[in-house]
C-alpha cells in the first residue's frame, strides 16, 4: 500500500510526464489555449492511460516476456507494434463509448479524442512501465511489480499531465493581455513559460516518500 501511494505521488510531481520527460508535448502546446478544452483533453488522456497501461502491463508480463507464451522464446521485440495496436484499438473503443453514453463530452472533445492515439504520453507511459518491471520494488519506489502498481502509475501520470496542461492554459489565458515581442509571440513564449514551469516543478525532485 505504501509503495502504491509513493508511486502515485511520484508520478504526479517528480516523474511528471510533461516537465520531466516532455511526453505528449504536441497536443499539450496545441490544445492549451483555454482552460475548458484543456481540462477535457486532460481527463480523456488520463482515462486512456488508465486503461492502456494495465493492459500493456498484462501483455508484457503474460505474453511478450521471456518464456511466457512459448518456452525459450522472448517476444519483447514485438512490444512496439503490439503496444501501439492496443493503444489505437482502445482509443477507438473509448471514442465509441463516449459517443454513445456522453454525447455532450464527445462533441466538446471533437478531434482531440482520436488524436490521443498518437499522443506520446500514452506510448511513453507504456514504454516506461516496460522498463520499470525489471526494477526491484524493495529498493526503488519507481518499480512496477504488479497490475495495481501499473494502475497507480497510470493514474498518477495522467493526473500529472492534467495538472500541467490546465496550469499552462490558465497562464496562457492571462498572457493574452501582455505585450510580447512580435517574433516571440505564440509558440516561443509558450515554450519559455513551460520551461519556467518545469523549473518550478524541479523543486519536487528532492521529494522523498
Amino acid at each position, binding site marked *: 500500500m505504501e509503495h502504491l501511494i509513493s508511486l502515485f505521488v511520484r508520478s504526479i510531481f517528480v516523474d511528471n510526464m510533461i516537465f520531466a520527460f516532455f511526453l505528449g508535448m504536441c497536443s499539450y502546446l496545441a490544445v492549451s489555449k483555454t482552460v475548458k478544452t484543456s481540462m477535457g483533453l486532460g481527463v480523456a488522456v488520463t482515462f486512456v492511460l488508465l486503461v492502456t497501461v494495465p493492459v500493456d502491463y498484462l501483455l508484457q508480463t503474460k505474453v511478450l516476456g521471456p518464456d511466457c507464451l512459448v518456452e525459450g522464446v522472448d517476444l519483447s521485440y514485438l512490444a512496439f*507494434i503490439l503496444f501501439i495496436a492496443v493503444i489505437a484499438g482502445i482509443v477507438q473503443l473509448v471514442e465509441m463509448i463516449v459517443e454513445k453514453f456522453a454525447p455532450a463530452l464527445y462533441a466538446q472533445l471533437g478531434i482531440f479524442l482520436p488524436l490521443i492515439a498518437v499522443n506520446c504520453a500514452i506510448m511513453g507511459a507504456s514504454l516506461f512501465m516496460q522498463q520499470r518491471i525489471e526494477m526491484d520494488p524493495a529498493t526503488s519506489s519507481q518499480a512496477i511489480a504488479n497490475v495495481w502498481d501499473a494502475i497507480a502509475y497510470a493514474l498518477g501520470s495522467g493526473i500529472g499531465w492534467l495538472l500541467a496542461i490546465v496550469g499552462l492554459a490558465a497562464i496562457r489565458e492571462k498572457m493574452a493581455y501582455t505585450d510580447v515581442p512580435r517574433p516571440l509571440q505564440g509558440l516561443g513564449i509558450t*515554450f519559455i513559460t513551460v520551461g519556467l514551469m518545469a523549473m518550478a516543478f524541479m523543486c519536487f525532485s528532492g521529494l522523498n516518500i
Partner: protein
Amino acid sequence: MSLFSAENKEAFVSPLNLNNPVAVQVLGICSALAVTSQLEPAIVMGLSVTVITAFANVIIALLRKTIPNRIRIIIQLVVVAALVTIVSMVLKAFAYDVSVQLSVYVGLIITNCILMGRLEAFAMQNGPWESFLDGIGNGLGYAFVLVVVGTIRELLGSGSLLGFRIIPEAAYECGYMNNGMMTMPAMALILVGCFIWAHRAINKEDK
C-alpha cells in the same frame, strides 16, 4: 520528369529552413527536447528519425493507391512501428551506449508527429521518389534543430562536445563553472523557445 526538378528540390530544401518541422510546424517536440542534453544522442536521434521518415514515406507512397481510406492511420502506424523496431535493434547492436541513453525515446519515434504529419500530408498524395526527398528533408530539418540545441546544452552544461573537453582547464582554474542548469529538462524548453524566436525574427520578411 527529371529526378531533380524544381519541385523535388523544393520538397527537399524547404523543410530545412523556411518550413522547418520543429520551429515552424511545431511537430515532434517531445523527443527534440528530451534527447538534446548531449550532442551525441542528439545526432543519433536526428539520423534515426531521418531514416525512418524517408523509408516510411517511400513505403506509404508505394502503397497509397491500395490503402482503404478508413484504416489508413492504423496502416501508417504499423509501417512506422515496424521500421522503428528495426532501427531500435540496429542501435542496440551497433551503438549500445547511445541506445541506453536514448532509452524509451527511440520507441517514441512511432508517435513522433513529424512522421504521421508527413505521411498524411505528403506521402499519401505523391510518388515514392518525391516522398523520399521530402522525408530526408524533414528529417534533416529536425536533426538540425536537435544539433543546435544539443551543442549549446553540452557546451555550456558540461564544457565538452561529443565527450571531448572544449573549455580549457585553465578557464576552470580562473573560476569558470559549468552551468548545471543546462543539463536539466527546463533549459531545453527555454532554448527551443529562443531558437523559435531567433528563427522567426530572421525569417520575418517571408511572412
